[in-house]
């Protein structure tokens, strides 16, 4: 198990490889469909400070009001491919060092991970209650009124948040490999009969 403290740097993430189990400590930011479109369409300088060196988490949490703040109840990953059109530019423009999600991403993102020094990490889809147990605090929430609970940017303090590197900064992608292996079997099955 490798410990990652956020914010992190180029050297640390380039040291990670596909298949590494990590535990994440520090402050990360959720961002899914509306958030990626927001960061992509126009440069948002106020988000550079918030995102530089950290990880963006494809997640729309279930939250509950707790006093003046919020408590995260369930916070597993959402499908990452929907952000494929935006992710490379968002990594480049905001200095993000990692993306957490599920299902993996495409070639454009894989290339960006290599070029800008970042990794893609998979969390377990559907294990939202387990993931939320690692969220210690909601630091902030941005654009809640405009985007609603699932789509807003939630700045979360996490402790030992578990994830697996499935796309690294050296061009390796577990998703690409599984896709290719399963495609061979699929073609054989389709050619039968």
């Amino acid at each position, binding site marked *: 198990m490798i410990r990652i403290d956020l914010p992190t740097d180029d050297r640390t993430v380039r040291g990670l490889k596909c298949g590494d189990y990590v535990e994440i400590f520090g402050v990360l930011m959720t961002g899914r469909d509306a958030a990626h479109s927001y960061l992509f369409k126009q440069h948002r300088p106020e988000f550079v400070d918030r995102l530089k060196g950290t990880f963006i988490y494809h997640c729309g*949490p279930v939250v509950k009001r707790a006093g003046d703040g919020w408590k995260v109840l369930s916070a597993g990953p959402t499908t990452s491919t929907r952000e494929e059109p935006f992710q490379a530019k968002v990594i480049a423009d905001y200095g993000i060092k990692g993306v957490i999600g599920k299902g993996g991403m495409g070639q454009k993102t894989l290339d960006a991970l290599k070029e800008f020094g970042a990794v893609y990490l998979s969390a377990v889809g559907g294990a939202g209650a387990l993931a939320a147990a690692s969220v210690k605090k909601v630091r902030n929430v941005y654009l809640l009124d405009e985007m609603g609970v699932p789509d807003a940017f939630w700045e979360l303090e996490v402790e030992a948040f578990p994830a697996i590197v499935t796309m690294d900064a050296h061009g390796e992608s577990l998703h690409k490999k599984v896709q290719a292996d399963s495609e061979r079997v699929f073609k054989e099955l389709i050619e039968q009969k």
Partner: protein
Amino acid sequence: MYIGLPKRGGRTLATKKSVDITDNAVELIRLCACVLRDDIRKRIVKARDLEPKDRMSRSVFVALLENAEIAARNSIPMCQDTGMVIFWVHYPKGLSQGELEGQLKKAVGKATKKSYLRPNTIEALTGKNPGDNTGEGTPVFHFKEWNKDHIRVDLMLKGGGSENVSAQYKLPDIGLSASRDLDGVRRCVLDTVFKAQGEGCAPGIIGVCLGGARDTGFAAAKEVLLRPLDEKSPDPRLSKLEEDLVTELNTLGIGPMGFGGKTTVLAVKLTTLARHPATYYVTVAYTCWALRRYSMSMGLGKKGGVRYD
């Protein structure tokens, strides 16, 4: 005018006023969102035991089981995507469908306040989230009057990720060499599951409808997943294909979350609807490993009990 229910022993079994399913429906929603079905849990345990100790695939199943425990113990949603809320309601003659619908909508609002549901409804044109899970066409309702004297409500919480990888084919399909027969159906299901990879939160549970119209095909492909997990199709041709498909799909090696592994699907269920001569749809509804669905049966009147399963 109100038409009363059949009387038993000279007493009215129920009056219109006596039926309020709101709070029971809130409990139904809680179960669905927070408590993993036992039949699914058993299959996850089996799937875990098939994977070697050092594999990522095994660690996924271990996490899913741990997650289920935390969620059930604390009544918090297993998954943050509490899905599209879909109700199937069977009700006895004489009850008002409109009132039942109103009560179920109210239950959805209450469950959202209790954080059993995430505010998951977004206005299509404005992108606004009203925050209470209300909106045009949501939740989804299927009502049917029946001859029994109790109400049954089936609920499914259908996640967006798995909805996105669901698919509908019209046969013949040249690309898949799929013709209008069971082998054609087989090819469509293989295609959907292959293309889904890990995006629909594999291992999937797959509902398939052969025939129907475009709209009814999807409804039926989801409804067939309300059948008990171990129950095969009553039609031997379909039950054989269900079995064959589970075996074939699990040779794809996609595995849980698409990490690679022996279990890519937990179950496949097939059903049929009559079709138009020109159309031959194969509709594949993909649901995630959790298949969040529960059923509530509720008797009417003073003797009415409620059962969830």
